[in-house]
């Protein structure tokens, strides 16, 4: 029963990792942009939520109403004004520019908020838990976090595969030149994809900030978790992100149970095993 509990906790954390991964996969899928600043943008969202909760005096989960549109608007502007200029046949320029962005965000946050650890207080739901059968209990907050992750992924999956909007995203992803020929303005589609990505980042950032302490330096580690979940999941389906996130979350939980020092290592080892056995991921993308 103890192990079942550990696995359950790992699954719930996996929801958060899935949200890290979703934003990353979305922009890589649509515009072949590897966003090195993704983790720092998650932390940026945490700080935006910190300011929002303090100035508006609301619960962090309520602050999402402000943080999500703010981050989405920032994403659209970032793509149109900066990142669109770096896109081309070469993958290196966007990589370098987002790496620079990562440095700027980390140091900007350090300047504004110092290196002190912060945490958002969400009140009673942080400590409440729901008792399941046989002494198994899950915290209310991790459960909400997982439910939100599933809802975000289901929403994006429906958006991508059921709507005209999603069709335009997939077409642009397949062949940007021919997408222009059917009247799609790539620059705008890329802007919308980044807006969508940072909207998910905003949600992830708020949950990250409620779940544990954060400071300006923790972004890159979130980026790694996101990357690992994306690669394990594959780019063929949004559900792959959830699968990848859960595998990573469970591996870390089991590793931590064996030895607290093994938490991250176990995650990386399982990632390497999946990469070796199934390099295309669990839900590979259809190739043209």
């Amino acid at each position, binding site marked *: 029963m103890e192990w079942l509990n550990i696995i359950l906790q790992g699954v719930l954390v996996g929801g958060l990792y899935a949200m890290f991964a979703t934003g990353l996969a979305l922009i890589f899928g649509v515009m072949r942009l590897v966003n090195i600043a993704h983790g720092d943008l998650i932390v940026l969202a945490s700080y935006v939520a910190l300011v929002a909760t303090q100035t508006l005096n609301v619960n962090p989960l309520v602050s999402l109403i402000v943080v999500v549109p703010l981050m989405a608007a920032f994403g659209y502007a970032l793509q149109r004004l900066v990142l669109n200029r770096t896109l081309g046949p070469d993958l290196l320029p966007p990589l370098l520019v987002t790496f620079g962005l990562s440095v700027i965000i980390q140091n900007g946050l350090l300047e504004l908020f110092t290196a002190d650890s912060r945490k958002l207080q969400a009140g009673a739901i942080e400590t409440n838990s729901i008792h399941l059968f046989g002494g198994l209990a899950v915290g209310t907050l991790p459960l909400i976090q997982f439910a939100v992750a599933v809802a975000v992924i289901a929403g994006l999956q429906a958006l991508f595969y059921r709507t*005209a909007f999603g*069709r*335009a995203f*997939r*077409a642009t*992803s*397949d*062949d940007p*030149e*021919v*997408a*222009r*020929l*059917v*009247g*799609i*303005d*790539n620059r705008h589609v890329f802007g919308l994809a980044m807006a969508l990505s940072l909207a998910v980042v905003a949600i992830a950032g708020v949950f990250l900030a409620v779940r544990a302490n954060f400071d300006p330096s923790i972004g890159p580690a979130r980026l790694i978790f996101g990357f690992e979940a994306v690669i394990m999941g594959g780019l063929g389906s949004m559900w792959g992100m959830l699968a990848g996130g859960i595998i990573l979350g469970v591996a870390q939980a089991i590793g931590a149970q064996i030895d607290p020092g093994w938490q991250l290592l176990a995650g990386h080892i399982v990632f390497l095993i999946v990469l070796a056995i199934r390099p295309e991921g669990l839900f590979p*993308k*259809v*190739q*043209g």
Partner: protein
Amino acid sequence: MAELSVTGIDAFYGDFQALFGVSLNVAAGEVVAVIGANGAGKSTLLKSIAGLIAPRAGTIAFHNEAIGGMAAHAVVRRGIALVPEGRRLFPSLSVEENLLIGGQLGRPGPWNLARVYTLFPVLAERKAAPSQSLSGGQQQMVAIGRALMSNPLLLLCDEISLGLAPIVVRDIYARLPMVSGEGTSLIIVEQDIVQALAAARRVYCLQEGRVALSGEAATLTREAISAAYFGV
């Protein structure tokens, strides 16, 4: 009056010049063929008209509006659609989704999903199939249908016979009169001269980026065409 007039355009890929002062006119409802050997600049000419390449010199006017250098997504909005060389369907979209995305601008006109399925009945049977699972000929039908869905005034067809069996090519060409019958003008780029001459009223022959010959398809002799085609 010319619907499209291309006047003296120069086009480049980086430092490599692909077109040298190419001029071409298309009247409303006309079918024009552009023939030439590999690398003569036929595809470059179509890409310049469609907005994928910005010509460095010369003008392109469509319904008296300058469209040279305009972005491709804005050109298609004005009624020019390109069937790209090699079909280039969207692999992660189904057959029907490929057609629907062609119509996503909502330009009014005779073409819609039902009309495309009437033109190419086999596509209606395969509409839910992944686009890559179709035969080459069927994929070409989807590519043409996708372009028609934008209800173009001018349809640009880049080597629609490429890699297809002769019987399939004849089948596809047999349906083009249904397209031009709607008043749509066509520019057909072909390496298959016989096919091009049969389908078009006027012909332009490109050779190494220049117009080597142009005229009524019926009046051009085989000798004149082969001289312009091969440059001998």
